[in-house]
Structure formats: C-alpha cells, structure tokens
C-alpha cells in the first residue's frame, strides 16, 4: 500500500463526502428552518436528475440544463409544500408519513415514465493521474462545488432578507408572525430552496451518477443520518457530520463493500446520538 494509493483513497473519500454534502444540503436547510425531514428528498434529487437529463437531451448545454433542473425541482417543491406539507404543520410524524408516501409515489411514477434503466448523458470524462492511479476530474470538481454550495447557502441564510426572516421564524414563529413576518410564505420559500438544492444535486451529479428511479434511495440513508446526527445547527453541523462520517464511510467502503460504508455511517450516527440525543450541535452557541 504505497503513498499514491493512500492519496487516491483520501481524495476519492473526500469527493464522496463532497457528493454526500451536495446531496444532503437541501434536506439540512428544510430540517433546520422547518423542523421536518422530507423523506421524499431522495426522489427530489432523482427529479432533478431526470429534469437535467431531459433538458440536456433536448439540446440544452449541461450548465443550462442544471439551472433548468434546479428551477423545475424548486417549482415542484412549491406545489408539494402547498398541497401536502402545509396541511401538516405541527404534526411531525404525519409529515414524515406523507413525504414517505410521496417518495414511493414519485419513484413509481419515474419507473412508469422512464423505465428502470436510462441512458446516461454523453459527458467527456477527463481524468487526472496520481502515480499509477487515475481519478475522474469530475469528482474533484464536485469537491469545489460542495464548498461553494455550503458557502452560498450560508451567505443566503445570513446575509439576505429572506435568510434573516426565515431564521427568525424558526426561532420563534409566534413572535415572528407578530412582527409581521409571513411564516407561511417563508415556509414555502424554504421548502422551495431545499427542493431546488435537491434538484441541483441530482443535476450536477448526473455525469457521475446516472439518473435511475431508485437513485434517491441510494443517497438518502447517509443524508438522513447526517442531518439527524448534525442536530439543530444544521448547516455547519451537517458539514461536520457529513464530512467526517462520509469520509469514514467511503474509506470503509473502498476497502470492503458499499453496505459496510453505510453500516459505519449508521453506527457512527448512533454513537453521536448516544452522547448528543438531539444531534452533535445541540449545545453549540452558533445558529447555522
């Protein structure tokens, strides 16, 4: 086991963690600002992936296809929030059940429309070489995307009018409403933001993870666990838990099978929740 090999494992683990963060951020935003977990998050990613696939096969250049997919998924999120989530405010378990139903309905709809196997998109796969090994440069690009996405979301929630209002509403919905903040509209926007991030994830990951109806399930195990392990300070917390557990999981997976990576993630989450039942960021003073 030489140094090159270790470097490759480290880099690919880092990029897996980046993929996880990209796939998780939308979930974390919704959880942090609305207190619910969207169990259909994986299918929102799948929605974005198919939207980008359809757009790019109809001739749109890939960057534009990503943008279109992001917007389409966000718009879909608005519909879901208005039709389903809104009716279940304050009913946490019912929200979980309803979004779970949505998850399977979306999955089956995708099977009906696209079949279970779909063509990938023709992206030239460039690689970089480390010693005897090669790495896809797209995965390295994704590390940059993950960092940019984290920073962007952080700035959006701390520096914009919407972000400040939304964070006020989550801390004390009643006071926020009394001060004239429309919490209902904010929730719609937050859910749209979370959905948009999921759609973006599906689209930007498309060259590396081909669109399939079941792709959502592959992402959500780690995404759910990362968010739950992160706790109330979702953005920073998820970056921490997703980063560390994600790296540990993909290291494990690279030496054994994928499922062992998931098991490491699962056990790691259980251990974190053992010490901090509300997530690792339970007692942090910061708010994002």
């Amino acid at each position: 086991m030489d140094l090159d090999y270790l470097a490759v494992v480290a880099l690919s683990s880092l990029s897996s963690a980046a993929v996880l963060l990209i796939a998780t951020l939308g979930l974390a935003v919704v959880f942090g600002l609305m207190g619910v977990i969207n169990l259909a998050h994986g299918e929102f990613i799948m929605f974005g992936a198919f939207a980008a696939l359809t757009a790019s096969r109809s001739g749109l250049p890939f960057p534009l296809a990503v943008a279109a997919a992001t917007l389409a998924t966000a718009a879909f999120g608005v519909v879901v929030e208005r039709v389903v989530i809104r009716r279940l405010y304050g009913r946490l378990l019912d929200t979980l059940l309803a979004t779970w139903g949505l998850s399977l309905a979306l999955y089956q709809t995708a099977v009906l429309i696209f079949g279970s196997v779909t063509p990938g998109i023709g992206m030239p796969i460039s690689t970089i070489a480390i010693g005897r090994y090669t790495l896809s440069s797209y995965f390295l690009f994704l590390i940059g995307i993950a960092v940019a996405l984290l920073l962007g979301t952080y700035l959006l929630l701390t520096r914009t009018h919407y972000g400040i209002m939304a964070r006020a509403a989550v801390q004390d919905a009643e006071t926020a409403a009394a001060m004239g903040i429309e919490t209902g509209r904010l929730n719609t926007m937050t859910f749209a933001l979370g959905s948009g991030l999921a759609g973006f994830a599906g689209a930007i990951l498309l060259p590396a993870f081909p669109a399939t109806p079941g792709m959502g399930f592959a992402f959500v195990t780690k995404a759910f666990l990362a968010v739950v392990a992160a706790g109330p300070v979702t953005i920073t917390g998820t970056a921490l838990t997703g980063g560390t557990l994600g790296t540990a999981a993909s290291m494990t997976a690279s030496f054994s099978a994928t499922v062992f990576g998931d098991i490491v993630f699962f056990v790691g989450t259980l251990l974190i929740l053992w010490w901090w039942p509300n997530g690792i960021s339970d007692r942090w003073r910061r708010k994002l």
Partner: protein
Amino acid sequence: MVAERDLGPVATEAVAARAPDGAFDRAQRHAWWLLPCLTGALVAGSAGFVDPYLLYVATSWVIFGLLGLSLDIVWGKGGILSFGQTALYGIGGYLAGIVAINFAPLTGNTLIWTLPVGALAGAGAAALIGFFIFFSRMGPLQTTIVTYTFTLILWTGTVSFTARIGEAVVGGDNGMSNIPMLTAGFGAGAAPLGPAGMFITVVLVATAVYLAVAWLMRRPFGLIVIAVRQDDVKTELLGYDVRRQRLLLFALGGAVAGIAGALFGGWATYLNPNVFSVQQALLPPIYVLVGGRGSLFGAFIGALAVGGLSFWLGGGVIGGQTTLVLGLALIALVILLPGGLVGAARALLARCGLASVAAIPPATLGGYAGIPAASAQTALDRPGKSLTVQGISKAFGGVQAVDDVTLEIGSGSVRCLIGPNGAGKSTLLRLCMGLERPDSGSVRLGADEIARWPAFARVQAGLGIKMQRTQVFYECAVWTNLWIAAYARLGDARAAAQTAARALDQIGLRGRAHEPASALAHGEQQWLDIGMVLCLDPEVILLDEPTAGMTASETRRTAALVRALAGHAAIVVVDHDMEFVRMLDARITVLHQGAVFAEGTIAELRRDERVLDIYLGRRGGVADL
C-alpha cells in the same frame, strides 16, 4: 365493537366489582377475549367454504395483519413511529427459515421451530436497535429516521449477502429457497398443510398473538405504555424508567413482527431481500392508518382491505402500479383520514346518531366500577430525607440561569422559593429533579449524591415534583391518573388502588373520579397533579407554582394541604402568590439572577429594602410582600 374490546380495567382485581352484576356486564367484561376468539373461530371455520386459491392468498393477509399489529403496538399504543417493522419481520423470517431448513426434518413439525425463533430474532433485533434509540433518549424524529435507515441498510445489505448455514443457502439477491412449508403434524411422515390447513393455522396463531398482546395491554404494562405516549416526562417523574418501558414495548413489537416473518417464510417457502424493501416497509403504516391507530385489531382490517383491494383489482400487493397507489393512499390517509377507516366509520355513525364518538377509549378511562373507601392514613414514622444543594450552577448559552446556589432543606420542613421572573427558581427545581444536567455542584437526597442520577431514580429514592406546567394524563380518568402514580411506587394493583383512593379524597375529586382529566378545570388539574405526587409518598416534595390558576378558596385548601404534609416530608414551594406564601408560614429563600439573594421569614424579608427593590425594581408599593 371497538369499545367492547378495549373495555375493562387494567386492575380489575384491585377494585370491588360493580354491584348489580348482570349478564350484560359480565359479557362486556369478557368481550376483550371472547370477541377475538369468536372472530378467529368464525374466520378459521370459513376455510371450508372458500376457494383454495383465495384461501392461500388470504393467508398472507392475515400474516400482514400480524405485521401491522406489530406497528400498532409500538406506534398506536406507544407513540413510537417505527419504519423498521418490516426489517424485524425480515430478520425473523430469515432466521426462522434457516433454523427450519436445518431442524424441521427432525420433527416434521415446522411451527415449533419457526415461531419461537422468529419471535426471538425479531425481539432481539428490536431490543438491540431500541437500546440505542431509547437509552440515548432520542426524540421522535430521530427514532423514525434511525428505524428507516436501519431498513434501508438491511435492504442494500441483504442483496449482496450470501452465506451457507448448515443446509440453508442465503443467496443474496436470489434469496433463500427451500424453506419448509408450514407443517403442523409431527414425525417423519408429517405432510405440509394444504391451503385450508395453512389458513386455519395462521388464523389461530394470529388470534393467539392478538390475545396475548390485548391481555398485556390490559395489564399495568399496557396502562404505563399509554401513559408514556401521553406524557413521557410525567411518567418518568412518577418513577417509571421510560427508557426500559419503551425498549420492552419495542421488543414486543419486534417479536410480533418476527412471528409474522416466520409465518410468511413457511407460507411462501421462499424469502428474498424484497421483504426489506421500501415498498414493503410502506405497508404496515398503511394497514395501521386504514384500520385506525391504537385499536390493535384495526391492523388486520387494514391488511384485509389493502390485500383484498389489490387482489380483486388484480396484481399482487407489491409490484405494478400498487406502489404508486399505496404511496398516494398514504398521503391521502394522513391528510384526510387521520383516524383511519374505523375512526371515520365511527364518526359517520355518530353523526347519524347511531353511536357515540368515544374520544377517550374506555380502557384508559379505567372502567373501574368501585373505588375502595379510603382507609385512614397510616402514620408515617420515618425521619424523612433532607435535600441539600451545594454550589450548583447551570448556564444556557450565555445566560447564567442558576449561579452557585447552596440550599439545605431539612427533613420535614417547608421552604418557599420566591424571586422575580427569570430568577432561576424553576431551573433550580429541574436541576434537583434531574431534568437538566448541572454544570457543576452537587445535589444530595438524604445521604445519596444524586446529581448524576436519572430523574426516575431520584423519584424512586423519594423525591417528588409537581412541575410548573400541569402534567396529567389527559386521556385517562382522574382515578386512573392516581392509580398509575401509586402503582409506580407500590408495584401492586390492590395496594395502588388503596393509595390512589386516599389521594382522591385528599384532593377532593372523588365525585369526578371517572371523568377524564381533560374535563377538569385548571385548578382541579393542578390538584390532580399534586395528588399524583402524593401517591408517590415522597420524602421530599418540590412544588412549582402549585396555585397557578386556582381560585382564592382553592389556594387556601392547597395551603392547608401543604401544611398537613409538612412534618411527613420536606417541601420546597415556588410561588408568586404572596398570600399563599404567607399562609404557609415557612422560611423563604429569595433568588435573584440565579443566585441566593436573601433568606429569612416573611417578616424579616418585609423589612429588607433590597428584596423590595428587586421585586418591583424600586422601593415602595410592595404592600403585597
């Protein structure tokens, strides 16, 4: 039918029977087991008149009903939404299958192998996961997510898992075949059951499991489960180890799921990772939602409805468009029919004036016909414990809520804690009780250092608290509330009834014993809460604003009650009502900004200018103190 099945006291033997013991009353009291037995017998007996293929398929509906029952146990009764029931079902099925393949040839009979192995495997796996969930005190969201990811991991894991265990070959995606078909006979010549025999066997097993669960739910165990669902903190403050209680319930659900899995394996003679799939995992919540949460038998109705519907519409339960329909059905159920078909039907009947909507199931109302006349209070000849708090501190974020407080409350004495809002009074009580962890300092109860003990252990050691927010089990009858509290300490139904009856008289609510706690006025709920604390017979009692919401005369009666208790127990009272504090005539500690500010009798404090200053921000106008 719902009402009759749930009817019946959990502690019948503890209370005198209703005087005119008519045949109808007797039938009602036995309905919980008679009706399921009759239903089971009727359903099993119908096997002779039904087409064998339909019988074969219907057998799986009964098995799925058991699977739904396992979720209704943990979710409907215990409030724990688990998405992992099919994982436990699959584990039970696989392990039972492995054992049956290897050992069933020895006996011919498969059931004696598969049922216990399935139950043990399901219960064991549930206990393992449940240990982490409940002993780390995860919240409801975390619990659901952990159970769901558990299912997802098993799904991906089993697809690639291959092993050979004795004669059994677990072939990953190919599944495990050659599971012996359900066989009831013994010996080498025992033939596998035909469709009718299989149906009857499964119905009998399901009836037996249902009866066992229904029986357990009528025991104190079931009442505590319902109490935990309504208010887990209050249940812990009565001295119950809520973690253990939830673990036991989850393991029970796991055992039922495992039995269902074992039956499924013997029915299908084949298992594959599909039993762990998300599509499969979606089914139990739908069964329970269709049948109505918490009714137990509703799970069977749900499984029958879903299974029957997809049978007559064509196609199996899983596969095809069923997933789409079921997914949308789940959304629709949650939004439109939270009470399920059974609940909706009952509401419809009620609107037509044909039935009354029982907002509170009779089981939780108690149905206690007779409450024993209270015997005289036995004289307490114990010294009682003292409560000593030393240098205790607690900060929330940047706020020092409690700052290096030292207090000693001698056995049998009364102490009032007063102070402006935000002085740290409630936090101090919560620290004493173990509802918050102190940053530093010690809490001693008698000779024991309890600062690190969980709350229920402190209660068992003789500490009782009535929190600021009234905590009673709103769905339960007044009498049941008290009984649950008394049972926590005594662990004996009859003795608990005696103690509860005494508390009922002490708080003057005997006339309303059978009403649900939610029907009481706020002041009466406060009394009920205090009455539950009295049932614990604590040696140190913490009362946080016991007179909030009480009328003047109610406040006077509360003061008299506290004075009567003094001498038997050390009492700490937090209150804003100076009239009430004056009536108690006790030593007073003034807290200010988390620290002890002054201490003395009411007369001494009245002369203290500084105390007057902090109370109103300036001197003068403090006629109240």
